[in-house]
């Protein structure tokens, strides 16, 4: 009978006590403010594959040593870039089969056309059977990241050196960005 009394009295008291005193211990929910999203996004940027016809005028067939094009990268103006972009590694790779040096200048411009930064290098001459490769990465971090945040146009400019109307070859370009965010 004494066991029964223990069960009748003590157990409900213990259980009720547990329920009434239950709480969240050993945690600090204030840390929720410190939680940040830090995604690293690998994103393709521009690519092109050029041959000799791209350096010749389509109407006169005249040799054009310098060609350029501009691509707007509207995503650079989005809020998540403006607010959260902390680091960027821009990788540019050229493979040259033209037997001439090519000067590449990749420029990032503001909306008004003012330059923010550029990546310029010379691509050595290649051959039909062997490409000359330039593979470079441009890092933007710290204070420099604002240069990318302010940019919205990417200009790719090529100058082929010492060639003439009878040039032959190919030039391939690949580019990508590793964008590191912190939200």
């Amino acid at each position, binding site marked *: 009978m004494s066991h029964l009394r223990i*069960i009748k009295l003590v157990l409900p008291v213990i259980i009720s006590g547990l329920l009434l005193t239950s709480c969240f211990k050993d945690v600090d929910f204030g840390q929720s403010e410190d939680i940040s999203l830090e995604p690293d996004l690998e994103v*393709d940027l521009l690519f092109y594959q050029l041959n000799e016809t791209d350096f010749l005028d389509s109407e006169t067939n005249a040799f054009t040593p310098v060609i350029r094009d501009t691509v707007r990268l509207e995503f650079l103006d989005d809020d998540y870039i403006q607010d959260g972009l902390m680091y960027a590694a821009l990788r540019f790779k050229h493979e040259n089969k033209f037997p001439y040096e090519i000067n590449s200048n990749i420029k990032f411009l503001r909306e008004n056309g003012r330059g923010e930064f550029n990546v310029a290098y010379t691509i050595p001459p290649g051959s039909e059977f062997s490409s000359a490769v330039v593979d470079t990465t441009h890092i933007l971090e710290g204070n420099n990241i604002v240069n990318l945040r302010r940019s919205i146009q990417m200009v790719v400019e090529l100058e082929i050196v010492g060639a003439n109307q009878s040039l032959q070859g190919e030039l391939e370009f690949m*580019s990508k960005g590793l964008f590191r965010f912190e939200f």
Partner: protein
Amino acid sequence: MQRILLVLIFFVTIICNGQNRPLLYNVDDLPQSLLQNPGARIDFTRHVGIPFFSQIHLSAGSTGVTAYDIFADDGSDVNQRVRNVMRDITAGDYFSVNEQLEILSVGWKMGDRGYFSTGIYQELDVFAYFPKDPAVLAFEGNANYIGQDFDFSDANFTGEVLTVYHAGFNFKVDAKLSVGGRLKLYSGIFNVESTDNEGVFRTIETPGGPNFYRHEVSGLNVTVNTSGYASLKNEEGMTVDQAAAELMSRSLFGQNGGVGVDLGFNYRVTNQFSVNASVQDLGLMFHQKDVENYNYFGSFQTNGLEPLFPELDNNEATIPYWDIFEDRVDLSLQDETTNNAYTTWRPLKYNASFEFGTGKSILPCDYLISKKPRFMNLFGMLISGVNRPKGPTYGVTAYWDRKVNDHLRFRLAYAVDEFSITKLGFMMSSRFKNFNIYLAANDIIGYTNLAKANSASLQLGMQFIFKDL
């Protein structure tokens, strides 16, 4: 025989895990057992619930993570803890919240062998699988997951608020068998569901391709169905309080209806040993009013933008590559909002148990009493489950049910489910004359520190129960 039974129990306990709510099941002197199994054996002749207080049920759980896992106050980096959780948690882990509030509950004996019960309750049920792949993509990005798929089917959730009107009949076929059924009319207040989603996002390396990678969204087909939401959304400037008040105003007669049944039986194999089973909420909800469906579908792939070096005059604008790219995206990956009616299954629940009684009670010495003696100790095992979008969740509970006397009864339970393998439960039901009050709590250990608990559930209520002999 006992050894075989023990082995069977152990085996079943190991292979099954899941979600259950067993503490009121088979409690023959609580009307709430009829909501679990309309064919349950009962030990009362009338009941009247205290409106809004005859059953308050709350349960919440998370299979893959606890509050402590994220917010532990141990000086370590909270973002590292989040990353650890993201690594360990799977797309099969889930979060669930269930709430039931009994508004009305009455019942009375009909004839010698029947018992009619009816009532109204309001229910909220939210069930969401952890959207692992979309969460990893948002939290970590794609850089470390080149070549791997991010699967949109991981986005899988349901949520509903409804009022249930029900009427059930329990019938004692003979001394061994009792059966029962309950008809339910559902009145939907709010519903959202997004299941059976499809599609992947991937970034793959393309050696020999035009660029370093190819980004693909393949076979995207994501739908979010809602009912009872569009009218709230369209109310400009509505505050959360106003939205809650609007939902409350719909609580008795919602805009969308449904119908379902509960079925169950109890069979006494011997005087001491009985088996029983039930299904609850075998029913459908028809969402026809205030419906809005959000659909996202299509496929798209890109290697980036390709400048064409056009021959331009000095003042001529270049090709709008970005606009063309956006147009391609918009054409390939579309979203549309429709108002198509849809139908949802209610989460079907099923229970099966056996029970063994020992220690016969002593009845008053009165020749008018035709009742059979009850057993003071009941040992039982219950397997219960709930149908969810990715398959049923199971739980197994073993319990000792002790009728201390005619006024006090308690149950101790041990359960294994997907939340915990050490789930201790306690139920106590007490009667003062005809007034009954009960309290049941599952995962008692978790209550000592809810931050480390994967789940917690609580049922309590009060009512008048009459046992006219």
